[in-house]
Structures are given as C-alpha cells and as structure tokens.
C-alpha cells in the first residue's frame, strides 16, 4: 500500500473535529498514522479519503472509528513495582493528612488499572475510604471496564503481575469463571464511577488526591501534553500525586516546575505549586 500522507491525516482530523467535536489534531503523528493504517487494513479502505468519506456519512461507523483509533492495551498491576510503591508509600502518605482519598483514573481503558487499585485498597482495608472516578474517551471500552469481564488468557498475565506485586491473596479470589471468561467481583467497583470524559476538550470537574494518567499522554504531541497537564494540575489538591507511565516524563512540559519527582523509576510526581 501507498505510504499515508500526513496532509491527508491532518485533513481527516480537522474534519472529524468540525463534524463530531473530537480533537485528534494534536495526537502524536507516528502512532496516529499507525492507527489509521490499521483501520484502513481492517475495513479494507483503499485510502484515507475513502475512510474520511465513510466517517462523514456514517455516525455509527464513527463510534467504531473512535474505538479503533484509541489504543486500549492495558494490564492489571502493570509494572508491579509501581503498584507496590502506591501501596507502601503513596497511599499511606496521603492518609497521614486525610481521612479519605479521592482517586481519578484518567484514560482507564478497559478498567484493569481500576480493578488493580480496588484490590490494592481492599487488601489495605481502605476501600470504604476511597472515592474513585474512572474516565475514558472511548464509550465502548468504558462499557467493558464497567462489566469487568476479561479473557482468561489475559488473566494469566494479570495473575503473574499480581504475584510480583506481592498481593495478600490469589487473584482468583477476585473473579469467577463464567462461560470461559473471567468475571471480576463487582463489589470491588461499587465505589467507582465510570464516566465518559475527553481529556482534550473536557472540563476540569473535580479535585483529587491521586491521579493516574498512565500511557495516555504518549499519544499526544508536546503541545497537547502541555495543555492536558494543566488540566490535570488543576484537578489536583496541592501535595496530591500524579502518576504517569514508566516511560513518560514531565520534564519537557511547560509547567513541570509545579511538580516534584517523588519516585523517578515509577514516575510518581507530587504537585507542589498551585
């Protein structure tokens, strides 16, 4: 197939923005291009122009486009050493000064991160002290997160991560096998509110002690990362924590001086200036 032209991608994201309001114009180009290429292959569209035509004509297809353009790959207890750090240091420190703890999973994808947090809190006996909001741009992935149904194959990996996290029990204690799939115990998320929210266009809606925004801003270019970081910063209490993916960094962001690094290996930051 022909190399995809960046000009065509720009046109596509401009038109999507005008018609539907979703703004991909400042997504990182290399991965955005890869996602578009994948969609062209998947639906056998011969060109970006044909894809754009379909998007414009067919709102239902556009929903599918949103699901396909976003990268939803995730794991429970991804980077186990990070989750140990949350358990052993972050949460205890927050609770030194607060009775309750508010958490935002920004870009929660299919929810594995949310269930990981719920299990962690459950094992610390703190689940009733936590108020959790989990958001994503992609409606259909949020439905998956709410339902908490995962493939057994993925659960093998999740279980391995959980063991390296050094959880107190077995991950099997938190799900049942139903029709060859894993159904997470829904009580774990009874204090979680799953909501559709767009980090690019969405408003700041609350303040939190802890925000996890892991492996989301890698899909944004530096400008957009700057803007989104401002919103995250506004959504945090002073001395609250922001945690990003293990291969992300805030050092190139405009307002990086409003944070300090608490743990560089696990990319745990603390807001120190309003």
């Amino acid at each position, binding site marked *: 197939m022909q190399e995809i032209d960046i000009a065509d991608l720009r046109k596509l994201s401009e038109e999507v923005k005008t018609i539907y309001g979703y703004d991909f114009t400042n997504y990182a180009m290399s991965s955005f291009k*890869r996602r578009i290429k994948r969609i062209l292959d998947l639906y056998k569209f011969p060109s970006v122009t044909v894809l754009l035509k379909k998007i414009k004509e067919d709102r239902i297809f556009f929903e599918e486009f949103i699901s396909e353009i976003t990268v939803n790959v995730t794991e429970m207890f991804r980077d186990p050493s990070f989750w140990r750090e949350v358990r052993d240091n972050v949460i205890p420190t927050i609770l030194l000064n607060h009775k309750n703890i508010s958490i935002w999973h920004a870009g929660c994808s299919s929810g594995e991160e949310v269930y990981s947090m719920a299990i962690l809190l459950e094992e610390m006996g703190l689940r009733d002290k936590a108020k959790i909001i989990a958001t994503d741009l992609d409606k259909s992935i949020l439905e998956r997160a709410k339902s908490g149904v995962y493939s057994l194959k993925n659960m093998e990996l999740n279980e391995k991560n959980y063991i390296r996290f050094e959880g107190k029990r077995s991950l099997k204690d938190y799900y049942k096998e139903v029709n060859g799939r894993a159904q997470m115990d829904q009580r774990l998320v009874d204090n979680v509110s799953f909501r559709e929210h767009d980090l690019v266009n969405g408003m700041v809606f609350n303040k939190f002690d802890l925000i996890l925004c892991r*492996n989301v801003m890698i899909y944004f270019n530096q400008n957009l990362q700057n803007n989104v970081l401002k919103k995250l910063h506004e959504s945090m209490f002073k001395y609250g924590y922001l945690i990003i993916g293990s291969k992300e960094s805030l050092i*190139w962001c405009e307002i990086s001086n409003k944070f300090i690094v608490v743990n560089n290996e696990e990319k745990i930051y603390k807001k120190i200036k309003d």
Partner: protein
Amino acid sequence: MSKFKIEPNRFKAIVIGGSAGSFQGITKILSSLPADFQLPIIMCLHRLKHVRHGFVEALSIKSSKPVEEPYDKEGIKKGKVYLAPANYHLGVELGNTFAMGTDDMVNNSRPSIDITLETCAYNYKNKLIGILLSGANRDGAMGMKKIKDRGGLTIVQSPEECMIDTMPKSAMALCEIDHILKVEDIILFLKEVHKAYS
C-alpha cells in the same frame, strides 16, 4: 584502502534490529565503537516483555558508550546509544524525538523492530543506515524495505554467521540489501562511517 567508501556526512542516524541470537553480535558492535562515535544509534532488540531491568545494564557494561532507554518525547542526541524499552514500541517523530506506544504487538513483538525502522526511515530518509541482525522471525523485514524505499542504506548480518537466520533472510527476500556482512565487517563499516563524519 578500505572496502567501504562513504560520502562525507551522508548519514545522520543508525538503527539496529535484532532478536534471538543477536546479543553477542550487538555487544561486539557496541564494544568496538569509537568512544566519540557521533551518530545516534537506535536499537530495537526483542526482549522479555515483563522484565524492565537488567537488559540495558547488560548492554551498557559491554559497550564503549552508555546505553539508555529513552523517555517518550525525549530529543534524540548526537553520540548517544538508545535501546527500545520493554513492552513499549519505540518510534521516532519528525523533528527527531522519540515516541512510545503501547499499541498491539506487531509480528508478535512489542517493541517491534518494524515500527522502529519504519518511523526512523520516515524521519531520516536517505540519511539512515539500517542494520538487521540474527533473529527467528520476520520482524524488521518490512522496516528494512521502508528504509530502502526512502533511500537509506541497508545492511544485514550474513546469514551463515547468524545463530538464527530467519530475520536477515526475510529482509533479503523483501528488499534490496546493500551489504551482507559479518559482524566484524559491520564494525569496520561503522568505523568508516565515523571517519566520514566531521
């Protein structure tokens, strides 16, 4: 007189892919690099998905220059050696910055060599050298083709020297390879590249 003739300052970056059986070759290359080697070297080597630590350290010990796993959006600098981190795709954006991705595995791999090679090809065009070493799958072949299509230079480790030759052979089947070399000669080649750089 050297076997290789290299135009002064023709190249801006080197990208290396490798998989099963490439560790020895890669460490030989890294240990023989002149300490003031100027071109950035970007490596994508297949590795255990869930082991974040150890690999970059193991390579660094054997290398004449430190090896680093870059962060997303980090600028690519002269004289540095970079390694794709575990469980992330490593791409390069126009403007010479790194871009991480957690998207689906490509050729059963994350990091995928094709992704690193293709995005480098797109960014560096004819100023790129692509090197593909020993490996047991086809990852990297398409990336080498992209490098060739954009005017870059392609090198594979000679199949008879490879522990597993599927990777270089797949690239040879898919596109024109400029040089098929033993590791020893890849090293000589890189030394010439170094001399041609001012």
